[in-house]
């Protein structure tokens, strides 16, 4: 099928997402990636120009690994979108760390529906595999009306769409930071006795929650099967804490089994998320679902590193239909076959000079 308009693109990607993972091989992934690349080359002006400067054109590029990647940092300075200004229904943005411009990812209703299909499919597999109807979502983030441009909040709102009880227990502080409405959170947990709950939030919010629960522990343990999804520990906001120690604290204070704590890896510039385990199962390294693929590349040579070696994480995400499917992140990772382990972020904390002090 030759894709020509955005509805076709969206339908093709959604159909691909719905395929069973076992039914997807490299050639199927490749075929759709190249079609999407051709569309984005035409419609995303900024991206098209970059591809031309690299002489990487549709027809010449034969494999998804050759599709030019765009550094996620350029979302701050350029409008990397296939959508005309008038067709941009909404956008998600992340300000990253302080003193930085925001990255903006624009959507129309079509691309938003692909985002929702993608996030829900990935989320369901990892967080609610038995689709227990009684699972209750409790988010530590603010609700969409307080955080309309957070892609994470949109994700949580999407997966909890059918829940009648309150989902969001975060609020926007005067300084713009997110805090937790602890009183309501506690009563929501008390009111969820007998249900499995899924508590969702950023690592930063969980640290706050742990601090609060240290002072005043929960009265009742959570039901068996309850789980946690935490994300975003690498944004430089949480205090220094190893992931294992962090999960141990979550486990101890919430009474959730450690193997029910799932870490999500996602970002505003993407429409798919990687997870490090299916809740209740063994932890593994991060992996994206079958419609997105990560590779760890050597920053020196641009080639994929060997197993066990560190490099820059790059991602081809077929669900990114209205922006750019191929992204070079700022994250450093170690390659473990088709999975990756996050080891840090490669951004300048401050301009270097004599300030470059080794630890």
């Amino acid at each position, binding site marked *: 099928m030759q894709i020509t308009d955005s509805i076709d693109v969206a339908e093709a990607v959604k159909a691909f997402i719905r395929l069973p993972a076992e039914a997807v091989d490299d050639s199927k992934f490749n075929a759709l990636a190249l079609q999407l690349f051709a569309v984005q080359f035409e419609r995303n002006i900024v991206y098209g120009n970059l591809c031309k400067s690299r002489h990487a054109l549709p027809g010449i590029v034969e494999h998804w690994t050759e599709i030019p990647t765009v550094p996620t940092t350029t979302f701050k300075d350029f409008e990397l979108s296939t959508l005309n200004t008038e067709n941009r229904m909404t956008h998600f943005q992340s300000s990253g760390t302080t003193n930085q411009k925001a990255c903006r990812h624009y959507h129309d209703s079509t691309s938003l529906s692909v985002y929702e299909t993608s996030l829900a499919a990935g989320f369901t597999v990892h967080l609610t595999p038995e689709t227990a109807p009684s699972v209750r979502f409790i988010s530590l983030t603010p609700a969409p009306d307080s955080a309309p441009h957070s892609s994470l909040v949109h994700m949580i709102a999407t997966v909890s769409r059918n829940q009648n009880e309150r989902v969001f227990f975060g609020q926007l502080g005067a300084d713009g930071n997110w805090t937790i409405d602890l009183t309501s959170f506690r009563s929501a947990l008390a009111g969820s006795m007998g249900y499995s709950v899924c508590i969702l939030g950023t690592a930063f919010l969980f640290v706050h929650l742990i601090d609060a629960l240290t002072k005043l522990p929960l009265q009742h343990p959570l039901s068996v099967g309850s789980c946690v999804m935490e994300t975003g520990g690498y944004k430089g906001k949480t205090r220094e804490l190893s992931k294992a120690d962090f999960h141990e604290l979550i486990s101890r204070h919430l009474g959730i089994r450690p193997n029910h704590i799932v870490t999500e890896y996602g970002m505003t510039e993407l429409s798919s998320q990687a997870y490090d385990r299916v809740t209740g199962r063994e932890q593994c390294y991060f992996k994206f679902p079958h419609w997105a693929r990560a590779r760890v590349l050597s920053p020196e040579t641009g080639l994929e590193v060997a197993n066990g070696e560190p490099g820059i994480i790059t991602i081809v995400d077929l669900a990114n239909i209205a922006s750019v499917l191929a992204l070079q992140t700022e994250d450093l990772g170690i390659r473990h076959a088709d999975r990756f382990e996050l080891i840090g972020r490669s951004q300048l904390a401050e301009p270097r000079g*004599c300030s470059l002090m080794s630890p």
Partner: protein
Amino acid sequence: MFFDVAMTLPNYFLADLPPEAILTPQLISDACQSIRKNRERFISELQQERIVRCLAQAAKNWLDHDHPIRRLALEPGRTQFSPETLATGLDHYFSRVTEESLFNLLTQEFGHENRLDSPVSTPEENVHRRSAMVTGPFLIAHITAGNIPCPTFSSMIHGLLVRSAQFVKCASGNSFLPRLLAHSIYEIEPKLGACIEVAEWAGGSEQLEGQLFHEADFVTATGADVTLKNIRSRLPSGKGFLGFGHRVSFGYITKDFLSRAQARLAAKQAAIDVIAWDQSGCLSPHAFYIEEGAAMTPEMFAAMLAEELAQLESQQPRGNLTVAESAIVTAARGFFEVRAANSGGTKIWASEESTAWTVVFDDDTVFQHSCLSRFILVKPAKDLESALRAAEMVRGKVSTVAIAASVVAVTPLAQQLARWGVTRVCPIGQMQNPPLAWRHDGRPVLADYVTWTDVEQ
């Protein structure tokens, strides 16, 4: 020969201990007591000439290709620099350390080269039948930054000139070259070497640093502004402190120097500034401003600079970067690549299959920090005034501005730069090669350390 066949150094300093040795406040305290005692016993009686001769001899040894100290320093993998880059840096640095330059430095700072030996007079003081001498602190603690060794070498030389015992605290993994300098001094004059201690630990250790600050009379520190602030806040009262914070540098090339023949020369010199110490010190340029209106446009100059960098890379390869460092260069390249593809005002030249060097021409004149590691920005400027306006965001934080200009033009440009707040103006090609008597960040070299004793007759 002071070290054995396997080129291992004797254990004189804490930094010579095997990596598994754990430093304790007690060890720091003992080391401080012992160098303090040695200072009392040895240096106070030494004549200035002997100290100067020792330092000049040490410099000669570092320059001697057959000397074990140099051979050891240049062993591959010992530092983050390639042996060729390191050799060039060491040659530049130590060729500046001579008996003459050391005596001249003393005269520059104190008006007389023998101020530390006894009360002496300048002709002006003599008119009023006055004389004076200076005394350095008993014990100086240097908290040094990790990037390049020269500032640490200089701190150690300055400390010996004012006859202080010195504790040199290096950042993790960066004590090798300072340690070698201490050994080379020890080899020539064990009495001087016995007044130096070199140790390394990760900065911020409150226990170790607290003990060191307690023992020291004077503390110097090089590093990020926030690090300096933190150190200052932890100093007990009554301690002298000298902090060298974050600085940036850039170059300015006037149109007088942009004829075809001269531009090539200027590009060669600019490339030398970029590659020196892998562009990792605060004297290294972040950008070159190129004056418009000459036959050679700023963009053409950038292309020329790229050619020169490519050539120099084969002679003085850049050192290996960590994955995180190299990822920063890749990200910066990626950013400018997108910009170049979407605007005629940006162009990028880069080494292939490596991050070894990058030149970005950008017609946005606003000063931008480079990610360094041999990544240089080239920007147009109407004149120096407009370049300084474009660099307003770093005003007060600029160390060196290199200029390429005709002899008559240099003075007015230097005046303009001085009034704007620049503390060092040098010819292009010399940015990382300041003279021994260079006033770091506009401060006196030795005068901040000493106490004067005036004698009236």
